[in-house]
């Protein structure tokens, strides 16, 4: 009888130990799961909050922004009746965008100034993700802040002129905030307006949204995101067809 009792007691102890082991495993597992879930939740929350904060803090939409927020219009309001809409997708850190800009940039802008085309500049900032910096967004902010003082186009060109030799090196704040404005002749009150806009990143929401909308449209039409890309009336223009800049208007008209 005592033998039997001891056996039963031992069994009960063993069961209790097993139960304890199980509780320990479940307890630690559940704790880890809860901590990870909370961390993910906080991460998503912080992400949303920072978006909200950005859109609340004196957000500025540049004067030449199109009403849909997708682009900056170059020489708005002068396009002739039925002039084709040309959209230029570019990223300030992309070397081939610089190439397109130096070869064809002035042809595009003069066609816009003469009203032969309606020209929209669509700034992308997706290279920031690939290159691991934030220079595309900052360059975009600087350019749109320059629009505040009526210097968008020249500023845009000067950014490309200052593009670092090595892709990924990025633009410095010094270049965007001080030396480029000086080169394009932003001075006095205009300089104060510009620098305050840049320092507050006032156009950041506009720039990042413009980039997001650009990615969406590029994916929809070309099935990929790559810059530079040119749309004529919403259709992709093959850049391989680009020849001498003097033939640009004819090429656009053929593809309109």
């Amino acid at each position, binding site marked *: 009888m005592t033998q039997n009792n001891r056996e039963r007691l*031992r069994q009960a*102890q063993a069961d209790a130990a097993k139960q304890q*082991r199980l509780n320990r495993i479940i307890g*630690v597992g559940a704790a*880890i799961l809860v901590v990870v879930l909370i961390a993910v939740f906080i991460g998503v929350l912080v*992400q949303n909050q920072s978006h909200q904060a950005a859109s609340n803090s004196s957000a500025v939409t540049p004067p030449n922004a199109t009403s849909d927020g997708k682009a900056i219009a170059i020489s708005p309001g002068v396009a002739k009746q039925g002039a084709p809409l040309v959209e230029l997708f570019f990223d300030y850190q992309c070397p081939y965008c610089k190439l397109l800009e130096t070869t064809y940039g002035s042809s595009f802008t003069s066609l816009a100034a003469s009203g032969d085309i309606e020209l929209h500049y669509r700034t992308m900032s997706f290279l920031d993700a690939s290159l691991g910096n934030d220079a595309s967004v900052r360059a975009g902010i600087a350019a749109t802040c320059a629009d505040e003082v009526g210097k968008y186009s020249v500023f845009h060109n000067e950014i490309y002129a200052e593009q670092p030799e090595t892709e990924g090196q990025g633009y410095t704040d010094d270049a965007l905030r001080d030396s480029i404005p000086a080169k394009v002749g932003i001075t006095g009150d205009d300089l104060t307006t510009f620098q305050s806009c840049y320092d507050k990143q006032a156009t950041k929401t506009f720039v990042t949204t413009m980039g997001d909308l650009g*990615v969406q449209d590029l994916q929809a039409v070309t099935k990929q995101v*790559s810059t530079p890309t040119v749309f004529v009336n919403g259709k992709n223009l093959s850049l391989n067809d680009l020849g001498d800049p003097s033939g640009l208007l004819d090429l656009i008209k053929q593809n309109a």
Partner: protein
Amino acid sequence: MTLGARLVLGVVLMVAGLLKVTRLDASIQSVRLYQILPWDVTAAVGSALPIIEIAVGLLLVTGTFVRVSAVVGSLLMLAFIIGISSVWARGINIDCGCFSPGAEVDASQTQYPLEILRDTGLLLCGAWAAWRPRSPFAVDNWLFAPVTEPAEDPDPTIADDKEPAR
């Protein structure tokens, strides 16, 4: 062997996660560039991914729930491999995102096989750790310590609270 596999995959995941966690915007952007997931889903995935990477990395390094975390880590690697292959197959140049005429394509395209090779290596680490989850210096050794036969020991709770011998 498992210890090595655990540490390699764990440290890589932690570093990858930590690099991204302070820049969730960029993390979301890079998920978008793969153009696999729907637009709205990318925001959630892009924000959650770095945190999950850090968590799984920590679990692997400390050796906690090694089998489960190694399986999750391997699935992450598998997802990355599929993502990179898909981008490669579609001819998207993700690192530059730039239109590259002719010869210039090569330089960036050669990165894809390397990245796939790297992730395959990490996947193998994960698979090994999942197959043979037992290793020294692991929290699991305490967590899953076998129940000591309470032969003469009258009070099993005391025995359980002791740190196990390594």
